[in-house]
């Protein structure tokens, strides 16, 4: 069955099952491997992408629910050759360790800042529930605050 979705600005018509999670279509059909599989039950957030600008966990999001909508992945978060301010803050604060969870974390934070340009710590806590097994949370919080001031300044 053909399903049409727009990924990072490009429209794709995919002959895939409507109940296939968006995660696997991104990774295996479209070759966008920056979005990660971590748990398959929407518990860890490694698979976070944006659906019409809102962060969602793609491992449990059926393709049918994304049909006709805009999906943004880590590869499309910023124009080619540039970095989103969250990515810049992540480098400045040397956040990643193994890095596996970070695509999902960065997408979650970018989504959070889109909704709450100047989030409180409680909003950050509620908006970033991803698992990072390396334990980079200490730096994540600092980097989020830095990205906020960057956004406020610019």
């Amino acid at each position, binding site marked *: 069955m053909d399903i049409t979705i727009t990924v990072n600005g490009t429209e794709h018509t995919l002959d895939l099952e409507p109940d296939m999670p968006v995660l696997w279509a991104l990774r295996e059909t479209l070759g966008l491997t920056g979005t990660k599989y971590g748990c398959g039950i929407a518990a860890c957030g490694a698979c976070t992408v944006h659906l019409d600008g809102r962060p969602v966990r793609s491992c449990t999001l059926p393709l049918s629910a994304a049909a006709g909508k805009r999906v943004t992945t880590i590869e499309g978060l910023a124009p080619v050759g540039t970095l989103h301010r969250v990515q810049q803050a992540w480098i400045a604060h040397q956040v990643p360790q193994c890095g596996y969870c970070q695509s999902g974390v960065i997408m979650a934070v970018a989504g959070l800042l889109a909704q709450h340009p100047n989030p409180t710590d409680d909003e950050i806590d509620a908006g970033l529930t991803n698992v990072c097994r*390396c334990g980079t*949370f200490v730096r994540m919080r600092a980097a989020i605050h830095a990205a906020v001031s960057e956004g406020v300044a610019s």
Partner: protein
Amino acid sequence: MNRWTRRAFIGAGTVAGGGFLLGVAGFTFAPGRHTLVSADAANTGQLTTWITITPDNLTTILVPHCEMGQGSLTALAMMAAEELDADWPLVRVQEAPAQDSYANGYIVRAAGGQYVPAVLARGVDYGAYKMAEWFGFQVTGGSTAVRGTGEYGMRVAGAAAKEMLVAAAARTWGVNASECTASRSRVYATSGRSAAFGELAHLAAAERVPTSPALKQPGRFTIRGTSPVRLDIPAKVDGSTKYAIDFTTPGMLYAAIEIAPVHGGKLLSVDTTPADGMRGVKKVVKLDDAVAVVADSFWRARRALAALAPEFSDAGHGDVSTASIFAAFDRAVGAPPDVPKAAAKVVTAEYRAPFLAHATMEPMTCTAKVEGDRAEVWTGVQDPLNARSAAAKALGIDAANVRLTNFSLGGGFGRRLPFTFDYVDLAVRVARAMSPAPVKTIWTRENDIQHDYYRGAALSRHAGALDASGAPLAAHSKYTGGGNGEAVFMPYAIPEMRADEKKADHPIRLGQWRSVLNSQHGFFKESFIDELAHGAGKDPFEFRRALLGTQPRFKAALEKAAAMSGWGSALPAGEGRGIAICESFGTIAAEVVHVAVPADGRVKVLHVYAAVDCGDIINPDSATAQVEGGIVFALSAALLSEITIAKGRVVQKNFRDYPMIRLADAPTVTTAFLRSNAPLGGLGEPCVPPLAPALANAIYAASGIRVRELPIKNARLTKA
């Protein structure tokens, strides 16, 4: 890579790996391989096995360790670049491939090489050498990268390379080498003449290899002690880093696998017809101990696998449970240990620690292509050479016929070490059934949680004796679950100390988990010393401090952590501080946890202060990141994590029932390094062991409730 001649290979020294194998205090690292020159070195600018300098003046440093987020690649490159006097922006790092020429064990000496440079002659440990020879050679574990490879390998490589460049420059200019100096990837003569390393590289490769290059004195370091950005990070913020799960190759198929739920069980039967005709399914592969569905997408493979109902035997372990294992522990340990009869006061306690899973964020993944007696493997492991051997063994072929490509690791923590390559073993067997198609076997999170090599559960009984003044006379323990000299070591001046191991076997598969046996014993011994302090009516910090008179490094770290935390200052009701100190992998870590235990019993860890003595630090920022990460990793375990067993099977399945802390639960962490100039210690692991006892001690201080069993979520922290 260029071909390495046997001569060049045998000429190479090697460096230690396999620290986890021994994991004891006093482990000595062997010399580092620092040489040398490949057959066509003059053509390629290859100066040493670890350093390449090309005409464009870029220095590429080959690092024989796996990057799993600990910053080893950057730190090791810094150690070499420092001695080389390279310009850091011109340095590139490459992880060495799984080839024998990169083996970081003692392979050269094992091969009969006579050549050990004088500068490397210190620190040879024959026992370690035998272990490395036996286990394989390219291990990243035991927090060995910086202190072993770096200290004995990378520095010497950099120093030797610099001497060769300087010699080449001196020869070209007709001056003495002593008149030349190197700085920021150039060699300068006193005349003012200079040349870039890149211009000298081809000449330098023909110079004699120095056997004892001079290493810099610490005061002359210009790169070490700075925090250049980690080289692996940019690709980790834009999704471009490739992990094993991201690998793809034309014609690749995907496998989902169900493994015998009781370890050791065999596949008895499976009706494959439900998978027949399902979209994308290529084959149901029956293995001795598992069943796999191979399809043209992982999701389709997994969906078809879910439609099957395979039956497995239970290897005779169908009655094993957490309760039965702890009952056996209880019997093995028996009565609390004896203490001197003259004691004014006796304190006894029993502690328990659960099985734990590693739960790396990237589930185990391995792609394999098998053709006849040859195989190609793409995976993520902490020891590529040993993984290659595991693949060869599973296929019954020669390891030389297996080509293995290693990827960035989506977490390691000990899960991807030698003897735990079941995911490679299974994947190559699935691929053999599909030969010659390449097959990527991805473990689900459920596979990962249920088929780990777990951190062992353990039970420990303690008895301590105090005299009338509250001074300790004895601290004895009896424990199950494994231990060693380092794990049970207590630095305190207590007249009688003893720790006796008792054996109680169980069939749960065990492995190495970040900080290994120190993770259980740190909790046991540092909880108990706290109980002794309270038994003596003394402040837990002062009590420990008074017993550290002959251990200045421990004392300094303990005092530092206490001072950072404001130890002794007043806290609001329901809050408390706890302290603990452990040595592991050559590093001493003291931690103070500041915790709130509100009336509802929901523990909130507010702040952790860590004072760490690992001798010296290479990259302060990434060193700090290891401290922070170790603390958060340990906090998840202390508060939330447990693997339990029922009917021989692991009960937990995924992150919902094997939870870990999130951002909202993460404390503020403040880190200080004590630069004692002791031999370099590890950093990936040593901040894990003190966290759980410091937390339990803090909860006691806050609430008066002593937690003696992990995880803390199971403890009742409200007063009845």
